[in-house]
């Protein structure tokens, strides 16, 4: 075990998987000579050369499609989006090509590709750079979606995503790159997709969440503990495949839950989770499941307004108290 940053954990995962399998390559804007916009690919150009670490023009649709096309004939591309906000330009290739290819080819052509980069808000980047993009990818069958919250998860899940034979959208937290945590050094440290992680245990209420919001959930749980309320914090880690068993287990234990997420409420991740709980664990509930999301508006730039628009600790605490009727 070593304590490293989320950024370095991702970098290790990339390097180890590229070492392991020479059909794995990385492409995207600024990934090679510049070391990546967030320095995730630092040093990889020197180590693997410019065929395997490829700078592209600013052509999201084109290079995402390049990745998909190369996967059609057996390569295992990792396409870095500088942020997932920019991936909207590439969505045709993600949805119409990557997610549907296996199905419409009658099982002939699978697409083992990873689309990765930061998703969600950082600080004061305004409406076009603060978008939580999970639902855009989750809506389409044929894609898997992964959202690591810690350095260990970042490494173990990225390795699993690269080894997976289907398209995986791997959404990193822009605010998490500098966070540190213990990460196993083992070359074969892989966290299988589809397993949630109970990041904190408590019997009174469940805060179910994913990605960057896991940290907000933990802070909220800390505050609740001061009032004698103990929360389970369930980090889903992978949203498709989704660890429904873990969701049902925490709800069965606490009988009260909230969903905390960075995105907008309408058809957000929480909407799906609430629906699953309602359909499959209705009798376990002692209160309606509430959702805490970003305000239903484009993200404002102003610091105070941005803080207000985010989900945040206070809102999570308030929602937990509401489902506890305290």
């Amino acid at each position: 075990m070593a304590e490293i940053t989320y950024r370095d954990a991702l970098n290790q995962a990339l390097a180890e998987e590229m070492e392991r399998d020479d059909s794995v390559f990385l492409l995207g804007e600024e990934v090679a000579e510049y070391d990546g916009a967030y320095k995730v690919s630092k040093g990889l150009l020197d180590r693997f050369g410019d065929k395997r670490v490829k700078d592209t023009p600013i052509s999201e649709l084109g290079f995402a499609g390049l990745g998909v096309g190369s996967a059609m004939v057996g390569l295992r591309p990792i396409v870095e989006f500088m942020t997932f906000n920019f991936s909207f330009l590439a969505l045709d290739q993600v949805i119409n090509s990557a997610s549907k290819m296996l199905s419409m080819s009658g099982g002939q052509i699978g697409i083992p590709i990873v689309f990765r980069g930061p998703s969600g808000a950082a600080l004061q980047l305004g409406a076009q750079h603060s978008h939580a993009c999970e639902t855009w990818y989750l809506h389409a069958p044929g894609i898997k979606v992964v959202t690591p919250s810690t350095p260990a998860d970042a490494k173990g899940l990225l390795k699993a995503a690269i080894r997976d034979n289907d398209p995986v959208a791997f959404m990193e937290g822009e605010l998490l790159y500098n966070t540190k945590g213990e990460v196993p050094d083992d070359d074969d440290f892989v966290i299988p997709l589809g397993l949630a992680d109970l990041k904190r245990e408590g019997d009174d209420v469940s805060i179910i969440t994913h990605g960057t919001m896991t940290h907000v959930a933990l802070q909220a749980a800390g505050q609740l503990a001061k009032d004698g309320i103990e929360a389970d914090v369930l980090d889903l880690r992978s949203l498709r495949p989704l660890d429904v068993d873990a969701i049902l287990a925490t709800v069965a234990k606490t009988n009260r839950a909230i969903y905390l997420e960075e995105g907008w409420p309408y058809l957000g991740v929480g909407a799906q989770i609430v629906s699953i709980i309602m359909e499959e664990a209705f009798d376990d509930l002692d209160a309606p499941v509430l959702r805490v999301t970003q305000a239903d508006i484009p993200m404002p730039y102003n610091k105070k307004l941005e803080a207000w628009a985010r989900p945040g600790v206070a809102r999570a605490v308030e929602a937990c108290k509401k489902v506890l009727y305290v």
Partner: protein
Amino acid sequence: MAETETAEISTVNGGPALGGFSKKKLVELLSQMLLYRRFEEKAEEAYAIGKIGGFCHLHIGQEGAAAGCILPLRQDDYVISGYRSHTQALAKGLSPEAVMSELYGKASGVSGGAGGSMHMFGADVGFMGGNGIVGAQAPLALGMAWAIHYRGGDQVCVCFLGDAAVNQGAFHESMNMAAIWNLPVIYVVENNAYGMGTKFTRMSDTEMIKKASSHGVPATSIDGEDVVATYSHFEDLIETVRQGGGPRFVDVECYRFKGHSMSDPVSGTYRSKEEVDHQTENADPICILRDRMFAARLLTGEELEVIDGEVRSMVDAAVEFAEAAPEPEVDTLYRNVYSEINPHGRLFFDGRGK
């Protein structure tokens, strides 16, 4: 072959009518094109009686492009196309049975009935689809060419586009990347002058052949109704690209004799009946080759009848096969959405899949 060079743009002018090809080669080109024609005619019939559904785009009139651009390829070369691709799938080596069954939506279809007319796939023979999004195949072709380059192979990727697809951003992004990385890809525009009911010249201020030039991709224009010229030109181009010559762009001039898809009129609104009649009479790639072969005494009427009889019975057999083939089962539906069902977690949320 005379080529008039203007910088990187050139028009390929005719050349000897039969290109010095052997009789065997010419007969092969003729019978392939006849197969495509008869196949599409059968598809048209089957569509009219409701055996084939959805959108169905016929290639009738454009057979010279399918034969001339694809037959010179090796089996391990890749072809990718749009939705007007039944005949291209045949040219790359898929069987008429498998393609017809796909049109019928049967389990024996190339894509098991999941694809239909617009999504023909034959990974084993390098036919990589079958795309319904205009221009989406351009970046996919780029990726396959990248994979060839990455592995140091000597295959070539041919990407068919319609004339309307060159106004997509995906096309220009792809041309640019193909050029900067010198990738082994040939972008072929089957220029039938219309995208649905929109004449190319209404939507572009530049000529087709200039679409590639700002990207630094050498371009040629060829008469796709002349299959011999098209074939010879592609033989040369493919060799150049195979040797590391970098990407190419080819404007293959042709004409669609039928409506855009089965539900569209052949003429009337966006093009006149006179125009279509004129083209059908004068620009039929099959008749052009036939007449040249007759004139050169390389084909007799009886020989032609034999060839036509052979391809007709192939197509009839394909229809019989498709008619008799079983429907795909519902339980195949979830099998091909993900190639890997992870041991943990749920992938499908409809309550029907697992």
